[in-house]
């Protein structure tokens, strides 16, 4: 069995003069949870729409579940669009049944699946309610369920977490993990790094339509040099002698962190043991009020890779 469920080959989409997605190539292995990350307007939704063959790429090609067009395998795909909406007048269980039937399930199975899912994810009491009576978050949960009720091999969720409270974000994370555990491949887009960090095996970072990074979370973090933050009022020049410290940068103080001393960022190479830095500080009499060596978060990676572009994007 082919291990990649989806591959994009130099995919580009332009609208007139505007390039929404620029030359993105990507391979997504089966059974992974894959995050599409990027600032607003980066091209995440357009990429997802091209994957689904709702819009055609201007250049490049998509291969999905072994086919050139998602339309040929649409019954094996589940999709939650970015903007959420449901038929207001339908009952909750009926709308899940309807979308499952549109994906090829028979009436009976679809109904059964609808009730099972509603019970499993805490919506059983609302099953007979009309969609219009649900809160926004509730409606969104229903829509997620209706997108995955037919147990598709590939689930594509566009911003599934937006608009959900922390409790329901947790429920959704659980659902995504359940699906991955069942061998389903999940792709979701988000700009909230914590979800991606908790859930994803792989991520795609995209900004201004260009792929900035794709690969595992660990590989993403490796793109940022190792850093040690220190705070001291003494001279830091003696540290320059340590082999393995590439650079010492002065850090602008952040308001409100309670730190009054001057702050420095030390960029260190892979071989250097941070213990050595600490030891040197003691020896040279540098009084530290802060010594901070932590793994970079995905947020740092994001800011590092696309921060400048994201800002520019916002004020464009």
């Amino acid at each position: 069995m082919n291990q990649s469920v989806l591959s994009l080959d130099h995919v580009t989409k332009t609208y007139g003069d505007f390039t929404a997605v620029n030359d993105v190539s990507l391979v997504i292995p089966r059974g992974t949870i894959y995050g599409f990350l990027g600032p607003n307007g980066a091209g995440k939704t357009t990429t997802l729409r091209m994957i689904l063959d709702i819009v055609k790429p201007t250049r490049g090609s998509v291969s999905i579940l072994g086919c050139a067009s998602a339309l040929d395998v649409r019954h094996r795909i589940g999709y939650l669009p970015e903007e959420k909406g449901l038929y207001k007048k339908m009952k909750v269980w009926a709308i899940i049944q309807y979308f499952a039937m549109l994906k090829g399930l028979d009436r009976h199975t679809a109904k059964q699946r609808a009730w099972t899912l509603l019970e499993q994810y805490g919506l059983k009491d609302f099953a007979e309610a009309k969609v219009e009576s649900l809160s926004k978050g509730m409606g969104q949960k229903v829509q997620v369920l209706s997108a995955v009720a037919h147990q598709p091999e590939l689930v594509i969720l566009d911003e599934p977490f937006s608009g959900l409270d922390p409790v329901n974000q947790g429920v959704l994370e659980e659902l995504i993990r359940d699906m991955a555990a069942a061998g389903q491949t999940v792709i979701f887009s988000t700009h909230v790094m914590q979800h991606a960090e908790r859930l994803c095996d792989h991520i795609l970072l995209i900004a201004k339509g260009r792929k900035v990074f794709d690969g595992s979370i660990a590989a993403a973090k490796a793109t940022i040099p190792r850093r040690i933050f220190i705070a001291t009022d003494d001279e830091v020049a003696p540290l320059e002698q340590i082999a393995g410290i590439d650079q010492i940068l002065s850090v602008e103080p952040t308001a409100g962190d309670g730190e009054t001393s001057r702050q420095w960022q030390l960029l260190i190479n892979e071989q250097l043991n941070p213990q050595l830095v600490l030891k040197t500080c003691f020896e040279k009499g540098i009084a530290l009020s802060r010594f901070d060596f932590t793994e970079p978060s995905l947020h740092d990676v994001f800011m590092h890779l696309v921060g400048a572009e994201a800002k520019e994007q916002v004020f464009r």
Partner: protein
Amino acid sequence: MNMVRLIALREYLENVRTKGFWIGILIFPVIFTAMYFLQSALARSTPTRYYLLIDQSGQYEQAVATAIEREHQSRLLQEFVNYLLENRKEQNLELTAANASTQIDELIDEVDADAVAALDEWLDAGGLDVALTMASPYLREDAPAFEPPPSQFIAAPLPADIDPAASPEQIVQHLRPFLSGERELLVDNQRVSLFALILIPADVDAAIARPGMPPRLNDLSSGVQYWARNLTDSRLPDAIADSINSTIRTREYRNQGVDTRIVRNVQHTRIPFNRLDPTAAEGEEAVSMADTFRQFAPIGFAYLMFLSLMQSVQYLLSNTVEEKSNRIIEVLLASVTSGELMMGKLVGIGLSGLTTIAVWLLSFFLFVSLYQSTQTELISEIINIILGSELIPWFVFYYFAGYALYSGMFLAIGSLCNTLKEAQSLMMPMILIQVIPIAMMAFVVMDPNNTLVRAMSWFPLFTPYLMMNRAAADPPLIDVVGTTILLLLSIVLVLWLSGKIFRHGVLRTGQPPRFSEMLRLLRRDV
């Protein structure tokens, strides 16, 4: 195909389950029924009207009385026919109804043709009493007794303070407050308002106009004066004028030494005048009432088509805009093709349109079978004619063709708009186009094969309406075949184009596209 059925079913059920749909459907029969009853209630509740007759010439009191009596008798006749139809025995239904009504129809015809003579005949033959005796074998045992309607026009006594011998000007002067409603008459100790004053001056005969006389200035004070505030109810003045003229003519005959019996006989001499239909089968060429209805029936069908199509496309548009505005469309398009989605919508909404027509027809039949009277008798006769005619297949064909054509266009419009407001502005021209053939209907029925009408029938957007309108008039074969081919071709074209616009349109956000943009969309290969 399965997906189309699924989408169609959902669209249909969603429509049919809304209150608005049923309100829209039921309002039509309800209004129809209400109007029917309102009309008969109004006819019954017209109050008794009091008139004053002052005949200073002393010659025409009888003529006015005859006129009033004739009004009463013709109303009596109508009520009597209704009574017969409502209370006849169920068995040998057609025979009784036909017999009773043909005889009475003839009588009513004669009342129209030569009122005085016919009234004489009816009264000579014994009037109502004899008619009741004649009809009694055909009535049900439990039939209630016939209640003759009350007289509608009653002569009021002259108020005590008015001198009937005074000059007409003085009389009118005195009676003005009564005529204008400021004062009321006292009749049987009840205050009633005066409906009309008929004033016949003493020298009225001097005003008689004869052929060959030099034209005279119209002097309002000469001749009979009819004073009344009500200008719309012309039954009374018409009847009185006819009756007085008739009296004067009879007198003239006598003066000329002509036997009035001969005159009456001459007036009853008639040549049979048969209107024949060359297209009918041999032996059935006579133009009956049924044939006339058959020719007018297309108007009804075209209206029905218009109403139902308007309703359907409205649903189509609002459903599409709803799906678009809350982005359900994206999920749908990830599940089914845009072609399946479009067909599903067309079929589903088409079914709701058919439901509407079915409910309308059903309620119509129900109404006709529940309330039988002369009018409904007529309506059920018309229905039988229509059901028996070749118009039904035409209607079915043009209904579906019109639906496919217009709904395709409205669907394309809906797919381009994000809000109903936007959609409505784009819809307006489409509705106006349909109003043109609808406005022409009455004219088309009278002259169905007129060159202009023929030419306009070839415009596909008009074809369903105009050809339906002309269907009963056996339009030339070339028109039927040619317009049908053109219509079918344009349906294919419209559905194909709408499919393309629909595909692009449904995922569009923001303003509806400009025309040039739309052309570009269409040109680009999808």
